[in-house]
């Protein structure tokens, strides 16, 4: 994989604009966002409801189209790709962890983890697989189906699935939104460990200051614009910033 001049940036967006609807009914979800995400960093995106944080993530991940602006995943400008190319890009370079409904109910945990590789027709790196499974602590649960797993276990399977294909970026959309605080903490620590130990780049959307405090950096959105950011955040500093934004 060849890299661009700035090796530190796994993902960049320039002048990112997203408009839904037309004329009077037009809603400006993003109004020219400029942002970069460093390789091997854990970044959280925060903001009040309607600030455009989910839209930003969908656009960055190539799930949604943009109205204007550019997005680069590594050296690829994804805003120029068609649906087929985007699909292949997601397959090769992007991992996902959603809030809910991350797993196919017909497949076992292991089959779910291996699914992205199977779709891409690639062989799993057995060493990586074992390491991921050890880290997630799911060895005994591999043969179980999603309905036989707890919510926290399901999310951990989802994270393992995202990790297994060694993507350039993992996008996590409210990964702890449906979990109790203990399971949530488990999943978040696991995400942080995968950044530290596997050098994974993670972008997470959340509205929970505690979840955001696990990240290396938090960026804040309001009304479709990037307004501020925090480095090495704590739950308290995140909460203070949010309160300031809402005011």
């Amino acid at each position, binding site marked *: 994989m060849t890299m661009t001049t700035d090796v530190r940036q796994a993902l960049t967006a320039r002048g990112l604009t997203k408009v839904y609807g037309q004329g009077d009914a037009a809603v400006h979800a993003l109004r020219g966002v400029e942002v970069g995400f460093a390789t091997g960093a854990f970044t959280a995106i925060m903001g009040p409801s309607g600030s455009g944080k989910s839209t930003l993530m*969908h656009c960055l991940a190539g799930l949604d189209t943009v109205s204007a602006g550019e997005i680069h995943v590594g050296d690829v400008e994804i805003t120029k790709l068609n*649906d087929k190319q985007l699909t292949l890009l*997601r*397959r*090769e370079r992007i991992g996902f962890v*959603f809030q809910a409904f991350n797993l*196919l109910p017909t497949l076992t945990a292991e089959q779910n983890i291996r699914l992205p590789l199977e779709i891409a027709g690639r062989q799993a790196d057995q060493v990586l697989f074992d390491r991921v499974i050890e880290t997630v602590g799911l060895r005994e649960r591999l043969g179980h189906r999603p309905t036989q797993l707890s919510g926290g276990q399901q999310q951990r399977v989802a994270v393992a699935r995202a990790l297994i294909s060694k993507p350039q970026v993992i996008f996590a959309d409210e990964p702890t939104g449906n979990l109790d605080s203990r399971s949530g903490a488990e999943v978040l620590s696991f995400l942080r460990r995968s950044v530290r130990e596997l050098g994974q780049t993670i972008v997470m959307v959340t509205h929970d200051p505690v979840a955001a405090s696990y990240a290396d950096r938090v960026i804040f959105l309001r009304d479709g614009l990037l307004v501020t950011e925090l480095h090495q955040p704590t739950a308290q500093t995140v909460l203070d910033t949010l309160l300031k934004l809402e005011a």
Partner: protein
Amino acid sequence: MFKTTLAGLLAHKLRLLLTSLAITLGVGFIAGTFVLTDTIDAGFAQKFTADAQKISVAVLPNGDDADRRQEPILTTGDLAKVRGVKGVADAQGIVQGTAPLIGKNGKVAGSRATSGISILKGTLNRTAITEGAAPAAATEAVLDKDTAKTRQFTVGDTITVLDSKQVKHQFTLVGLFDVGVNQQLSFTGAVGFTTDTALRMTGAKGFREIDVRGGDGVSPEDLRASVAAALGSGYTVKTGTQLADDLASANNMDTEFIRMGLLLFGLIAMLVAALVIYNTFNILVAQRAREMALLRCIGATKKQIFGSILLESVVVGVLSSVLGLLIGLGLGAAALAVLGAVDAPIPTGTGVSLSSRTIVVGLLIGIIVTVAAALLPARAATRVAPIAALRSQVEESTFRAGVLRTVFGALFLLAGTGVTVLGVAQDPGQDALLIVMAGGCVFFLGVLIVAPMIVKPLGAFVGWLPRRLFGVPGKLAVDNSRRNPKRAATTTVALTIGVTLMSLISVITTTTRATVSEQLNEQFPVDYMIGTQQRDSTIPRAVAGELRSRPEFGSVITVRETEARIKGQSVNIGAFTVDPLFKVTPVKGSMKDFGPGTAAVTSWTAKELGVTVGDTVKAAGRDYRVVALLSDQSTPVYGVNLTERDFDAAFPRVMDKQILIKVKDGVAADTSRRIVEAVTDPYPTVLVESARETRGAFDEALDMITMIITGLLGLAVLISLLGIANTLSLSVHERTRESALLRALGLTRPQLRRMLSIEALVLGLIGALVGVALGVGFGWAATQTMVDDVIFRAPVLQILGFVALSGVAGVVAALLPARRAAKASIVGSLASS
């Protein structure tokens, strides 16, 4: 509640349409059947009423029509009596018999002798002359226009007709006529003469009917009374109106037969439609569990939920039945147009009639089937707990084979098998067939019960290849097809019904064909069959004698038989031709001892007479010792077989009915044909058919029947495909987020579409496999009940064709749902709950 239901229905117009279509097609077919037959009935009534206006009173002989040998007739004396009645302006007798027309090749025309009829003079004539004039002299005749066309006669030609003593007579063709709706005349073709000539030509001893026209001012009712009084008892005297009514209702009986046959297929289609509706509502209820729970939360009672689902089914039922009626009207009109175009002997001129019965029956069947099919799903809806509204994820329905299902399924399957085995073990006949059919129905119920249990292993079996061939989409598709066994079972059973019946029919026809031709070939590989046109006419013995003298023919076997009274019973007796090529294996005894003074008896006749090998039978005053019992299926074999010499001595006047010829090897086909024709040419009523022609005609008839039945069953298959499409599109809807997840993980649009197509393929194949297994199995059982030594043949290619077609059809059914699934936006689908 009413408003909520309607709003829900309107919000899903496409789903409504797909669901309705199943019922619409079924109702359409049923309504179409009624429209078609009603219109035909109306046409007959109109035609007969028009005819009846021409006659005031009709006289018919009393008597049993069933006894064909002695048809009751009216004499010239009767006619004279009628003519003498006061108030009668005109009275004429109608003659109908046989008068074989000789074709341009010098042989009698057609395989059936043409009918000879009288054309009445004046206003009493009911025959429509379409060209030229009615015959006025003894040397003039008219021909029905279809026969004239096929035999290439035109007005002004001279035609030759045989009289009842096979003497040729020549007539000038003065006109052509239309046989109208007379089925018999349309089938045989007809020559029309003046009444006197008709009597002479057909050899009829009198009239079938005497038509009377009353003088001015004489009411038909009064005339009827006075004619009846003049004739005395033994006659049926009707007014013209009564006659028209009777004729019309007799024809209605015929259309009733067609109606019942077609309705049977309509009912099969409705059964399949009911399964489709049941499945659709089941899925809808499962999908809307949260919606129902929400309604329950805000205060809707169980009763209201039940009512709302039922109301939805009523709306669907009414809508689709009304649409079905319209389609039925179209179908009926189209069928009439086709029948009119091929000039079928039915009235097609009248407008299409939509009776109130058609409307009532169509609507009732449509609505009742829809509502009944929705009853169980509606009950299931009431079991949704209000708390379900708060659960985030729809639970995956898991299926476990209950004890009850296992026990009942096994019971039905065992009972079905048992009854079928019982039927097969019985002596061949209608009873045995009925038992097998009953066994088949019970077994099918068993299959219906265990279907959810066998769908999973069958899915694994059918999915083996796609799983390996199509990568991830293939694997996911096979898993999905086995995901909800109950749903998959109902979807596929709908298809199974159609495929079962189709393969059943093809197995039966193929086996029949093989058995019949094998019997012919094995016992006597015939090259030519010589026969006659009419049932009662025979071939002079000289023909067989001459054929036997020719060195080109290996064997010449005659069919020479009559009825004789043996032990007070009427028994079929005939002359058995001993020939090396004609192999008959006795069931008991030996044909070696067969010679003068002996008889060979079929086992059935032996049982009837209570005789066996060694006993004697007495026929026509002589005793014959029974030396062998023969199989009932051998042909040509009679109940009691004598040597030719013994038979001719006992029944010197019996001629040959048929002659079967086997040509010696090495004799060219045209040489043998020429000789056969040379020998038979002096006898115009004797017809020659080559075995290939006979078999071709038989094959054609069988093919035709198979095609018609398969076509009619196609409707049921079409409806079941709608079911697959419906199930799949509802499943796609259910799995919106799943599909979005797969797309996010890198499944391309074509891969997603392929996944759904493969799922449909697997469902289609499961349905087809079960259907083929049942069809072939019970086809085999059914053929075992036809005759003793059946040669069973499964039409492998045809059956593989059914399986392949079902698979392809499944894929086609998946096209639209798959397109919709692939087009959905990922972000939007992920967000929807």
